[in-house]
Structure formats: structure tokens, C-alpha cells
């Protein structure tokens, strides 16, 4: 039913608010049927990017296309996109049914009531909120509210979906359930989605590609795997992974063989090996997470996190040795840009990094 090529394209788009540049020269293509997640901290320009795509803001420079049509200056109603807001997502004076029927009753669609009812029921079934259709939208739990908000976007069958941290107000358990469901629905429908979040877990699990935003700039875009294993910079490396990547001066843990110009070396906690030789370290904290254990150590004046299996028991104060899995180190220069580690065989990563921007 939707248009043939439902893609969203930003071309050198910039949006300023006074002296703040909220979105800085963004170029990004969300392909037909693709799920792109923009990941960034609060204030990175995520919401502004979505608002530009929806027509709620007009860019200072650059162009935006949806499904092949230049919509840079088109009003929201003329764009074939649906928006799921971070909060205040449902009209409080309407029932669930009326909320979901609202876009279909708009002057630009004006479906007849029989068709609306069939469509709303179909989507309600998909989202498992059929039983709630006659509830007032304020008489729902947080999870149900966001389901309805997603449903209101789905009924229209738009060219693209824009989602602004739709799960961030939910508790952890619900967030997980809805995340899985959202991905299932997106795959079933082949929907084009531009989704923003500050939650790396959501980004990793939902995205076909992740774009990392920092201060309005798209720092890197690629598959979750690429972003995780070949981050373009220290900033990107720190955004993904829990606990955070260990950043050490070159030479620590015996890692002296970095490429020329390297000042910092990054080691993921899961790549740190304990008790099999290497530098001497003392355990200063142990956190049991169930299946895994996080161990904080001090070695040669550096703090090092290690993520180990639950079997490897350690005690605070214990002396051990620490080294890293060979070939897993990431080297960064003085400016925080990643350098190719000569000894490793990740030669094609920089090319992938440029892809898609």
C-alpha cells in the first residue's frame, strides 16, 4: 500500500536555535525498510533531527526528502511520516480507539468509518491492545500508552516512522518486551524507521544501522557490529559497551606496539584476561551481575575493568595478573580519532565507516 521507495534523506541539513547548532550539516539516508537508530546523549540534537523530518522545524540550510519528494519546506500534514513522541503521546480527551482513528479521520485522509474501524482493530490486534480500545487514553499503564502511540503511527501505513525515545519512560522489563515487539512489527511490515535514543542497548538490538550523534554532528554510522568493534573515535567507543571501554595510555598492560601517533589504547572489558600472566594488578571492587562479573582492578596506576564469567571468583584486595586478548586493542591519536592498528587485520574497517554518510 505504501509508496515504492519509502526512504528518508537528509542532505547537508543544519538547524540552529540562536547561537546553538542543534543539527550540524547532517547527511543521512534511511533506506526503504531500514531501521536506523540515532544514538546520542541528551542535547545531541536527536529530537531536532526527527522534528526536521516531520516538518515541525524548518532547517536553516540543506534539504530533506521523504519517499523521493523534497519536503524541506512542506507542512507536516503533507509529509507521509508518522511520529511517536517521547512523552504526551496520546490525546488525553479521547479513548484509545479515537486516538488511533484520529489520523485516519484527518482532512487529508477522511476514511469512511467502516474502513477506519477495520484498520484500527487490525492494528490493535497486532499490538495486543484490542481489549483496551474503549478505555480513555489516560486510563492506561505506561506500556499500554506507548503501544497505542505506536498503533496510532501504524494505522496510517506511512512512508516512514519517526520515533523519539518511545520506550524511555517505561520500566526496564516492559522496555525489553516492547523493544522485541517493535522489531518484530518493523520486520513484518518492512517499515522504514528513524528511531532516536540515548540507550545503547536499544540501539544495538533494534538497529540495522546505528548513527552516533554528538553535539549535532553525525560522528559515525554503521552496523551495530561495526560501531562496536571499529569505533571512529574515543567518543564513539565510549558510547557503546557496558561497562565502558578501558582507556589506557599506550604502553600500559604491555601494549606498546601501537601504530605511530597513538596516545591512547582502548580495551573492551570482555577482552581483559585475568590470572594468565601479564601486568600485576590488585582487585579493588567486584560486582556480580548474575551471569557475569565486573572486576575493577588497579594496575601500574591505571584503573582497569574486566568482564568475566561468573565462575571466575575474585576477592577485593587479591593480587592477580592482567593482559588482553591479542588483536582486540583499539588505538586512538591525540585528538581521539582511531588509528588502524598495524598488527591487526581490520584493514577494511575505515572504508565501512564512510559508508552511508
Amino acid at each position, binding site marked *: 500500500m505504501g509508496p515504492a521507495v519509502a526512504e528518508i534523506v537528509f542532505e547537508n541539513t543544519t538547524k540552529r536555535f540562536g547561537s546553538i547548532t542543534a543539527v550540524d550539516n547532517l547527511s543521512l539516508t534511511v533506506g526503504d525498510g531500514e531501521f536506523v537508530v540515532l544514538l546520542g546523549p541528551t542535547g545531541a540534537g536527536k529530537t531536532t533531527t526527527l522534528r526536521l523530518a516531520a516538518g*515541525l522545524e524548518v532547517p536553516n540550510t540543506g534539504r530533506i526528502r521523504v519517499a523521493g519528494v523534497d519536503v524541506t519546506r512542506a507542512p*507536516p*500534514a503533507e509529509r507521509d511520516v508518522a*511520529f511517536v*513522541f517521547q512523552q504526551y503521546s496520546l*490525546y*488525553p480527551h479521547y479513548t484509545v480507539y479515537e486516538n488511533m482513528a484520529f489520523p485516519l479521520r*484527518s*482532512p487529508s485522509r477522511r476514511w469512511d468509518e467502516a474502513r477506519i474501524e477495520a484498520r484500527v482493530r487490525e492494528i490493535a490486534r497486532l499490538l495486543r491492545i484490542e481489549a483496551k480500545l474503549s478505555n480513555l487514553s489516560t486510563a492506561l499503564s505506561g506500556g499500554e500508552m506507548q503501544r497505542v502511540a505506536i498503533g496510532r503511527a501504524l494505522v*496510517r501505513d506511512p512512508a516512514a516512522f519517526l520515533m523519539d525515545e518511545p520506550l524511555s519512560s517505561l520500566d526496564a522489563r516492559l522496555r525489553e518486551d516492547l523493544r522485541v515487539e517493535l522489531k518484530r512489527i518493523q520486520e513484518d511490515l518492512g517499515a522504514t524507521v528513524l528511531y532516536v535514543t540515548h540507550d545503547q542497548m536499544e540501539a544495538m538490538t533494534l538497529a540495522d544501522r546505528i548513527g552516533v550523534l554528538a553535539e549535532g554532528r553525525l560522528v559515525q554510522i554503521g552496523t551495530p557490529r561495526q560501531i562496536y568493534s571499529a569505533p571512529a573515535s574515543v567518543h564513539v567507543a565510549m558510547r557503546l559497551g557496558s561497562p565502558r571501554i578501558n582507556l589506557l595510555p599506550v604502553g600500559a598492560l604491555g601494549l606498546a606496539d601501537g601504530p605511530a601517533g597513538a596516545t591512547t589504547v582502548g580495551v573492551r572489558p570482555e577482552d581483559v584476561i585475568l590470572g594468565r600472566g601479564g601486568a600485576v594488578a590488585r582487585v579493588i571492587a567486584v560486582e556480580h551481575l548474575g551471569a557475569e562479573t565486573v572486576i575493577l582492578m588497579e594496575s601500574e596506576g591505571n584503573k582497569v575493568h574486566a568482564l568475566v564469567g561468573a565462575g571466575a571468583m575474585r576477592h577485593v584486595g587479591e593480587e592477580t595478573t592482567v593482559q588482553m586478548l591479542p588483536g582486540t586493542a583499539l588505538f586512538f591519536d591525540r585528538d581521539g580519532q582511531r588509528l588502524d592498528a598495524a598488527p591487526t587485520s581490520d584493514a577494511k574497517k575505515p572504508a565501512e565507516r564512510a559508508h552511508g554518510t
Partner: protein
Amino acid sequence: MSAASTRSVLEPSPWGQRFAALLVILYALITMIPLVWIGLTGLKTPPDAIAYPPKVVFDPSLEGYVNLFTARSRQTPEYMASLPPPTSWYDELVRKRNMVITGPSRFAERYMNSIIIGFGSTFLAVFLGTIAAYGFSRFKVPLKDDLLFFILSTRMMPPIAVAVPIFLMYRALGLSDTHLGMIILYTMVNVSLAVWLLKGFIDEIPMEYEEAALVDGYSRMQAFWKVVLPQAKTGIAATAIFCLIFAWNEYAFALLLTSGNAQTAPPFIPIIIGEGGLDWPAVAAGTTLFLLPIVFFTVLLRQHLLRGITFGAVRK
């Protein structure tokens, strides 16, 4: 003592609640007494109304209401005796006082004026106030703060302080003693209150709802109509009641600017006293009827009003 142990620490104790209830009931009684007295006086005969000590138990009579709605003239006993028997219960009531009905009084007409002017100006003030408040709330208006202050400053003196210029202006414009003139005047006084109250309410409605409607395919105007207005109705109801109460009760301007044509009930009711002695029951009957529309309107909008007046505190 088990009851005390189960209540939340934030709840007042049972005795505290009883004391608070007692205070509220006492206060309600004190404020109700004059109203009850007026209501009762309207149902007394003139002698009962001025009896001393005051009569609490009395034979109810509709004489006050009959006198309110009729013009009467006093006749000699000979003339009264020559009349054919009375044709209606109110004829009979009037004749007991040696009077005959000569026609309807002007009360109904004045009452109608009050309704036209009161509700007309309330509608206009709330209508203009809603649009202005929406504009101030949602758009970048140059000099917004100054304009809002200016709008409020029109209420910093009692409106009657500008009675003379308004009187002269109205005479020059031919607005004196017209319905339109009174509607414009009360609208002008009320609109500043309406803008300020409604801006507060509209500010509290998140922009996201309208934006969602825009993305859902509606124009700004339709979004205002379908999404903002329904959520602002609590505020609109509260504002409308405040505006209506002012316009309905206003006395000074009505006395000054109206006489024959557009006179409202407040300057008319005291005049009743003059027509044939101190007719307190008629005055009380007029006052009772005068109170009814406000009571009715307030009860009608009650559930909005309670949330509206305490706005900010208990939204959602």
C-alpha cells in the same frame, strides 16, 4: 486506635477532619443566611416581611412575585366594590390590598436585558480571550511581555474610575443605553481577565499534542479546534463563570449608561421599592430570580470549575 495506625501520616487525624468539617459547615451557614433570608422574604406578605421580631414561620404568599411582575394602582373601596369578581388568583391577591393590576411591570424586560448583555459579553470575552491567549502562549509575539502587562494594567483601577470619559464617548458614539454598548463595555473589562486566566491554562497544554495532530494530517486551525479546545474547556468554563459573574452583577455602569432601553436588572431591582411603598417581598423576589441563572450556570459547569479554580495544583 487501630484506625489511627492505618492512616497515612499525610492525612489529618479523624478529630482534625471533624473540626475542619465543622468550620466549613459554619462558614457555609454564615454565608447562606442572607441568601436564605432573601429567598424567604420573597415568599412573605409585605406586613410579614417587616414584622418585628422577624417571622421565621409564616404563611407563604406569592404576593412578592405578583408585585414584581405587575404594575398596580391603588383604588377607592367604592371602585373596588364595583368591580366584577376577580378572574385569576393573582387578581384576587392584588385586590386584597385595594389595588388593581394595570399591566405588566418592566422586570421581565430588564431581566432579558441582563441575560442578553451578561451572556453576550461573556461569550465575546471568552472567545476573544481564548484566541488571544492561544496566540500569546504559542507564537513569538513582538513585545509579548509588555503587551500582556498592558492588558493586565487595564484592571489596575476600578473600571468606574473612567466612567466620565466612557459616558462622554458613549454619548458621542450613540452607544448609550444600547445592548451593543453594554456588551462592548463588559467585554472590554472582562477580556483582560480572560486573556490572563486562559493563557495560564493553555500554557499547561503541551505543544506535543498539537504537533502530533499536525503530523497526523490536520491543519493548525483544526488542531486548535480538535486538540487544544477540548483540553482547555476546564479553563474556559472557569473563565466564563468569572466573566459572567462580573457582567451579571455590574451595577455602576448599568446605572450610569442605561435607562429606558438597555437597562439591566441590577439598577432596576432597587427601583421596585418606590412603586407603592416599601415592597420588600417584591425586591426579594426579584433578587431571588436574579440569582438563579448564575447558580444554574455554576452548577452546570461545576465539575470543570472545581478543577479550573485550583488550576496548576491538580491538572491531570
